[in-house]
């Protein structure tokens, strides 16, 4: 609880948490407020915002409700962002722990694989992966995670290398603990904090990558995405700029919110560490 209080002490953290909270509320409320298909035609095409209060943000080229699309898009952005980040952190933590703990050949092989992934631009990797496997939500998540797990893997490995030398790891060996149990029960939990500190950066990057993929038409075609909305609006950028600006602003706010909240968490744990 102390930690929570400290988290809410910094104004950035409060702002970030507020943005994220409203975003999550949007995502959760989307099927309640806009129960129908957000891709259905709701009115005349290219209705500007604030003209018709049943369609507050107006309509797009095909007459779809922009506000409904925005709400449903929040679901996709958040789901993909969080799932991809979780997958990247999980893969990274496991690979990093195995490499750092086992050392020798296993370490060498795993880290060269990590190098290989890191040298390919992660967006190109995602692009190639989705193009080959085909666009669907799961594939997009996998594609993004594929390019994002190397950071957590390196941080986890570095941390594990230092923890591996601690007395309590030697102690676990002396009592005859199985090496995999030492790695995942004694070492990994203590190596996690700095890895988790990366999560805000990864979530933000994943949301942006998802938007970029959708913008290029490689998102799940059955779901509304902010990236897709921006791509849609691009063709009428001169006549109806709001179609690109509205989802763009939503995207910027989301990434900002994730960053700020993440900073707040790091800040509050840093204070805690220095006090203890």
């Amino acid at each position, binding site marked *: 609880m102390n930690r929570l209080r400290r988290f809410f002490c910094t104004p950035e953290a409060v702002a970030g948490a507020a943005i994220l909270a409203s975003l999550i509320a949007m995502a959760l409320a989307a099927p309640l407020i806009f129960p129908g298909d957000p891709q259905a035609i709701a009115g005349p095409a290219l209705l500007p915002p604030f003209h018709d209060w049943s369609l507050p943000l107006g309509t797009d080229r095909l007459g779809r409700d922009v506000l409904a699309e925005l709400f449903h898009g929040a679901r996709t952005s958040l789901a993909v962002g969080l799932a991809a980040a979780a997958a990247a952190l999980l893969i990274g933590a496991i690979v990093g722990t195995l490499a750092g703990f086992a050392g020798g050949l296993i370490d060498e092989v795993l880290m060269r694989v990590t190098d290989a992934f890191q040298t390919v631009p992660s967006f190109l990797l995602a692009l190639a992966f989705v193009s080959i496997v085909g666009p669907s939500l799961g594939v997009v998540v996998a594609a993004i995670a594929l390019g994002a797990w190397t950071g957590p893997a390196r941080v986890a490995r570095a941390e594990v290398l230092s923890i591996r030398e*601690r007395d309590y790891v030697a102690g676990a*060996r002396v*009592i005859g603990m199985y090496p995999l149990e030492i790695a995942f029960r004694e070492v990994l939990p203590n190596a996690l904090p700095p890895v988790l500190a990366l999560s805000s950066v990864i979530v933000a990057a994943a949301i942006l990558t998802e938007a970029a993929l959708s913008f290029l038409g490689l998102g799940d075609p059955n779901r509304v995405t902010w990236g897709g909305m921006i791509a849609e609006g691009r063709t009428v950028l001169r006549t109806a700029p709001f179609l690109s600006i509205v989802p763009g602003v939503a995207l910027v706010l989301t990434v900002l919110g994730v960053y700020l909240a993440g900073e707040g968490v790091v800040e509050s744990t840093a204070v805690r560490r220095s006090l203890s």
Partner: protein
Amino acid sequence: MTVLAVSNLAKRYRRGGKPFAAVDEVSFEIGPAETLALAGPSGSGKSTIAKLVLRLIEPDAGRIDFEGGDFLALSGGSLRARRARLQMVFQDPLAAFNPRATVARVLDDPLRIHAIASRAERPLRIAALLERVGLETNLATRAIHEISGGQRQRVAIARAIATRPSLIVLDEAVSALDVSVRGQILELLLDLQRQERIAYLFISHDLGVIRAIAHRVVILDAGKIAESGDARTVIANPQSAVGKALVAATPKLVRTSQEAS
């Protein structure tokens, strides 16, 4: 019969590009219920020998026989099983435990790993272990970082004796403790030795402590054995240069008006 016999043990490292011998042709034996102390200045190879004996690192040469079998020949599962008989207590009892652990978990691990007690029996075993080392049984639910240094070292000893070992390596196990606690821990170790017939490889730089608890002492210098023998005889009349220096450097409390008790 010996519990541990080490012969011609050697371990070399590279320091600044040059190879140097951390442990060089070291041989010694420990009998049942015997305490052998390893003494020497820092860098003399004491802790390296401890790690070698525990197979935490591998020697470059030499032989380790434990309970009559070639200890270096073991690997994998057979080594892990054998570890039950050869335990260790570290210098810093806080660093020796997973910072997230509770007392109960620390004591549960060896019982579970070596299938000493069933899941249902283990809480009783843990309580018995805590009592054995002079701790309250309700300490089990506490986190390791919540208890005092002396209590932690008792927990470390409880964990070491959980698997009924024949030898415990004590690496500066009382050096970080307050003097009053140190006395109690040494008493506990002696008591356990008498009752369970456990042998100790007792590593310390403090000749006063060694003299109080050890039967025999091996004095090391730069990885080699400088001299060895009966602890009190060696300390009373050291023959090697390093032995003389260690004795001379030990702080002496000169109490004139009363007998040192």
